[in-house]
């Protein structure tokens, strides 16, 4: 089975010029972890996820410091959260985006999700235009269904 058969075709996407605040409200409103960022020409330019927001609002050195217990939010974090309304999505999103072709098989998408630790992967067609998005749960449900037959 190819991923094109199970992906969500209605892709809510974000624009790179949107503010991060708007984008964050959208993804938390939809209760999903992230959305692809697509520019005016329909090209996939990035991925905006909760992880990227978290990485942005916490101090940048935080991944190198070992045990470092914050009892309260640092002032810089509070500031960055309020500043989200003044920053564009393009400044926070990850630019190296994982994507798969329409005709990628389920198992291959699963393998990529595992090795690259991604929960949602945009699906593109031969021209690089985003045609859908597939999530980890979609893959699992489809694989389970396939095996029941």
């Amino acid at each position, binding site marked *: 089975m190819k991923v094109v058969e199970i992906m969500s075709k209605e892709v809510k996407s974000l624009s790179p010029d949107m503010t991060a605040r708007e984008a964050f409200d959208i993804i938390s409103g939809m209760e999903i972890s992230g959305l692809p960022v697509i520019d005016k020409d329909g090209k996939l330019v990035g991925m905006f996820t909760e992880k990227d927001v978290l990485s942005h609002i916490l101090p940048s*050195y935080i991944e190198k*410091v*070992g*045990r*470092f*217990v914050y*009892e*309260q939010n640092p002032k810089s974090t509070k500031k960055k959260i309020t500043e989200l309304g003044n920053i564009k999505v393009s400044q926070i999103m990850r630019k190296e985006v994982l994507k798969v072709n329409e005709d990628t098989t389920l198992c291959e998408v699963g393998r990529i999700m595992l090795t690259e630790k991604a929960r949602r992967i945009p699906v593109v067609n031969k021209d690089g235009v985003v045609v859908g998005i597939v999530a980890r749960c979609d893959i699992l449900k489809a694989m389970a269904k396939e095996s029941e037959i």
Partner: protein
Amino acid sequence: MLKKFIILVVISLSLGFLSSSIGLSFNQSMAIAIFSVSVLGTLFFWDFRLGFVFLGTSILLMTRTINIENVIKFASLDVILFLVGMMILVGLMKEAGFFAWIVQLILRIRNMTAVKFVVIISVISALLSTMTSEVVSIIFMVAAVLEICDYFEVDPVPYITISILATNIGSAATVLGNPIGILIATKAGLTFEDFIIKAFPLAMVCLLAAIILLIIWYRKTNMQLDKHIKELGANEMLIRLISVPPDKELKISLAIFGATLFFIALHHRLELLWDLEPNTLLLMMPLFASGCVMIWKWKRAREYVEKDVEWWTLLFFMFLFAQAGTLKYTGATDVLAQKLATLAGNSLPVLIGIVLWVSAIGSSILDNVVLVAAFIPVIQSFQSMNLDLQPLWWALLFGGCLGGNITLVGSTANIVALGILEKERNIRMTFFRWFRVGLAVGVLTTTIAWIALLVFPFYR
């Protein structure tokens, strides 16, 4: 990018041809050309530096400029293993929360005043950098400084600058802080005691002078900080910001680290007592201590070795040292040393000055370790000229460390700290803004070191 590459090749080849024309042999010129490639490679292509040294060393081997046996000898595996051991220890300390605990201590200081702040961050930065690598210590210091400056709403730049300057000065004080220390100790045959008795006091004097200079330099920001401290009152929120209680794990890791430092401090005495070759214990202690750590934390041992040891950097050092050693092996540095000595009229004081200032200026452009690696064979060449080498080694040590303060690329600590500043507060330090204070501190401290080395016969 291609332009940089062409410049690199052109400069290296020119140096090679220049050496040939002043009469150096083919091997010597080749060694110089390849070494320049590596050095310029670190300057222009910092991210690619490992690729450059891999290829450069291969060329040295293929052109018979040096053989494999000597490459291994010069690669200074003893220094590398020392660093491996220390990095594992530091990995343990980070995980146990030692550095966070230090940051927390800084945040808890009551009755803060601006001058107190400057003194405290300078001293702690310097002391931390005497014990561990400057990169690790600077990350935590910057974290503390940013939190405090956020709280009191002042510009963090002056205080980060102060912390960086203090870190570079502190790294000259002991064998441990900077790879430079252990490198010089091994090649010069100096001991931890030598460093404590001769380098540490001098570094402290430089630090003191720098602190005074910086208090005056940044008096405006200090005044502002004082004002805000009065306004915003006690830093209670700060006190509760980061909390790492000294639990069992932290205490045990402190004990291990403390014991390691203790035995390293005594290494010379114990070596005399047990009739061991000089610096054997110094090099062996981190291995032993990290072996114990890997028993205690056997589940995490593999991760310490694979993540906390900076193999990329260590491999680079290995090959860099091997290439520097080739300079000595081919005799290129002997020729260079001869010419330098003649230039100095064979007078030791003049030579001390030359080594000190040239390494200071060199270290302001190049990475400290690269500079020191380049100079070591030169100083080793001076040995054949019946000169007392010890002051030259101190000159190299201080020049290498203090020079790192002069420009904003002078040392890895600078680059790391300013990188964090840019990412966190979107503040970009301009070359000249740094250069002004860096030059002042750099020249002041180097002059103090110069005077000390010249005046006190202690350093001979």
